[in-house]
């Protein structure tokens, strides 16, 4: 932890100076700055090189992409078994990617969940572009979510009906995360407002209890509650689908976390705004809807995106209560006897899907934060 190893936020000057001096000077400054830095560079360089060579050999050179199939359609994985340890068996992903991505959705109808995934991605992109940040966006969300419901369930417009039991894979992950965020957001705004309503002590206590209890327990406890206790809560004869129960648990869980984010925005707003609205004679809901929320929510968009990334990853926990999301489908694919033991390949495939979504979102969130801060800096 000596001073030499710490790189304090550099002034722009040094960076331009280094750039103008060419690669040798750059390397001297950034890789071989001191004997300590040189040692670190050599050691890390050696390790990285070894790892890269190993990964390329395992993942590309010795990798097996396809395997022969026996007459009854069962994969013959002898080649893969033989190459185990020296080469990756990507054939498992080639063989199982439809199952992993779309679950047990009828094979001929799998274009529907594929479109659903594209719709979700499109929805994220449209919501992310600032030129679309207007009231009509709410309408777009309602229309797209409804279209997603129609595509998944079917039963209208000549689409065959597919029940929730047959859904699986990436659409489940996206549905849990997106519907969870969409429905928990209004709840979160109300709870955040309730928590700051000093004139309504009873409501405030209710909101504080809700937020603190949910945030104090792990998501698994909430999911267990949905899967084990929820059936007890319902009157006899009423059976709520497992996916819906998990979705409700997710909404309640996300609501508490989002409420804290929204509360942060409400607190960051100067009190003069509310006082000015009061002085103009606006009612509570006029004040909140036209003055407070538009400013407070704008402040917390980056943390909202970060919280959403968290939910996206947290959806994988439904594995524990037996819902067939992306991660669960990966495990299901691995339980197929010929493919047992190729978990590294499948887990890497799953990880790359999660990384693709999360990395795009976190990159976006950071860019947004920079932009919003730039506009505030004078």
């Amino acid at each position, binding site marked *: 932890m000596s001073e030499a*190893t710490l790189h304090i936020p550099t002034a722009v000057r040094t960076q331009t100076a280094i750039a103008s001096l060419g690669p040798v000077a750059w390397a001297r400054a950034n890789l071989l700055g001191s004997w300590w830095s040189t040692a*670190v560079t050599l050691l890390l360089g050696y390790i990285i090189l070894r790892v890269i060579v190993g990964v390329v050999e395992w993942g590309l050179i010795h990798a097996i992409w396809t395997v022969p199939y026996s007459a009854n359609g069962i994969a013959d994985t002898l080649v893969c078994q033989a190459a185990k340890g020296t080469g990756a068996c990507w054939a498992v992903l080639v063989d199982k990617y439809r199952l992993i991505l779309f679950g047990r959705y009828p094979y001929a109808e799998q274009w529907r969940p594929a479109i659903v995934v594209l719709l979700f991605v499109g929805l994220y992109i449209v919501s992310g572009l600032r030129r679309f940040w207007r009231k009509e966006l709410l309408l777009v969300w309602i229309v797209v979510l409804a279209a997603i419901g129609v595509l998944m369930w079917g039963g209208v417009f000549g689409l065959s009906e597919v029940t929730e039991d047959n859904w699986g894979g990436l659409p489940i992950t996206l549905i849990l995360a997106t519907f969870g965020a969409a429905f928990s957001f209004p709840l979160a705004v109300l709870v955040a407002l309730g928590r700051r309503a000093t004139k309504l*002590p009873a409501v405030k206590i209710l909101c504080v209890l809700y937020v603190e209890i949910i945030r104090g327990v792990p*998501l698994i406890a909430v999911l267990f509650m949905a899967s084990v206790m929820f059936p*007890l*809560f319902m009157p006899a004869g009423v059976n709520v689908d497992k996916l819906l129960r998990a979705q409700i648990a997710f909404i309640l869980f996300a609501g508490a976390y989002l409420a804290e984010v929204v509360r942060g925005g409400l607190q960051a707003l100067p009190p003069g705004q509310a006082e000015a609205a009061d002085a103009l004679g606006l009612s509570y809901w006029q004040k909140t809807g036209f003055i407070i929320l538009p400013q407070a929510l704008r402040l917390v968009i980056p943390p909202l995106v970060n919280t959403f*990334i968290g939910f996206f990853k947290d959806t994988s926990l439904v594995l*524990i209560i037996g819902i067939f999301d992306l991660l669960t489908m990966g495990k299901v694919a691995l339980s197929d006897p010929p493919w047992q033991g190729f978990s*590294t390949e499948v887990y890497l495939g799953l990880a790359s899907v999660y*990384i693709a979504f999360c990395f795009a979102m976190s990159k976006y969130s950071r860019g947004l934060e920079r932009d919003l801060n730039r506009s505030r800096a004078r």
Partner: protein
Amino acid sequence: MADTTADPRLAAPRAAPRRRMRLSWADPVFRAVVWQVLIVGVVVAIAWYLIRNTNENLAARHIATGFGFLGRVAGIPIGESLIPYNPASDTYGTALLIGVLNTLDIAIIGIILATILGTLIGIGRLSKNWLLAKLTGFYVETLRDIPLLLQLLFWYTVLQGMPGPKQAWHLGDAAFLSNRGLKLPRLEWQTAHTWALVAFVAGLIVTWFCTRRAHERQDATGVRPAVWPVAVGVLVVLPLIVWAALGAPFTLELPALRGFNFQGGLTLAPEYFALLLGLVTYTASYIAEIVRSGIQAVPLGQWEASRALGLSSGAILRRIVLPQALRVIVPPMTSQYLNLTKNSSLAVAIGYQDVVSIANTTLNQTGQAIEGIAYIMAVFLLISLSISLFMNWYNARIALVER
């Protein structure tokens, strides 16, 4: 007349007149009461509806509520336990207690290791060495973007895929990594060690008093007496003398391969090791970002000013930068500690028997769903509350004292 024209500022301050509530929608006080009655009423009605349904369902399924099942014999086999446990004779109460201890075990060790690893990586990201900075950046970016559960499953399969005990990876004769987990040497604990530990704790108390004295003296005279000779004496030399006086026993119990498995030594079972590995590496990626932003939050002028004062780089870090960085670091660090503790409940997916896992088995065996979940929630609320209280106390201690 004179009264009405008198300057109101000269009059004694009066309390605002108590206004009586009017039964009108235009009165904000009345509105507030109506809203609260309405909202609380709706919540109570929903709760009552759910409780009534639950009671009916429980009656229909002949499930008796209550914690009476805690006294029954559990019969749950538990692999790892910090207290003696026998599935044939011990009760659900004991099994659930073991679950809590296991959760605390993984949480405490995980928090310590994640803090160390995260701090190192966070400092690495600020390194002047381009390769180190990029590599640690890559670590943070990748691990944060993969669900923890996926990482845990990955580590668990990796550990299960390790070679058997006979072909175990080993570090001399001391440490073995095989599909039976990680084996480490263990110190054979003897009375001399206990007394040395007692001496060390006594040394801690003495050091604390000396530090306080030194503070008082510095406040009074401006000269700070050196504490470190006393600290070294009572923290290192004294326990060593005690240990040596009692015969200086030191024997390590090494794990040894006998038949198909290892005997002796300290064992980290694959479940425990995978959970620890996953929790530590995942949480460290968040802690690294917190540490980095904390150090960057200290203005550059602070470094320059302390260098201008001629402080050594160690002193700059210890006395100037860290105290300021900690103020930024501690609050988000608290929530990471809470997250790690809550995330340890993912143990249920890889078969480490923490409180969630044992409570889940219990509720499956007894059908006491409500009690089981209430137990899990109570335990985690208690742990969360304790960590929050401790970290709030620490935060208040290091917070900027404004005069």
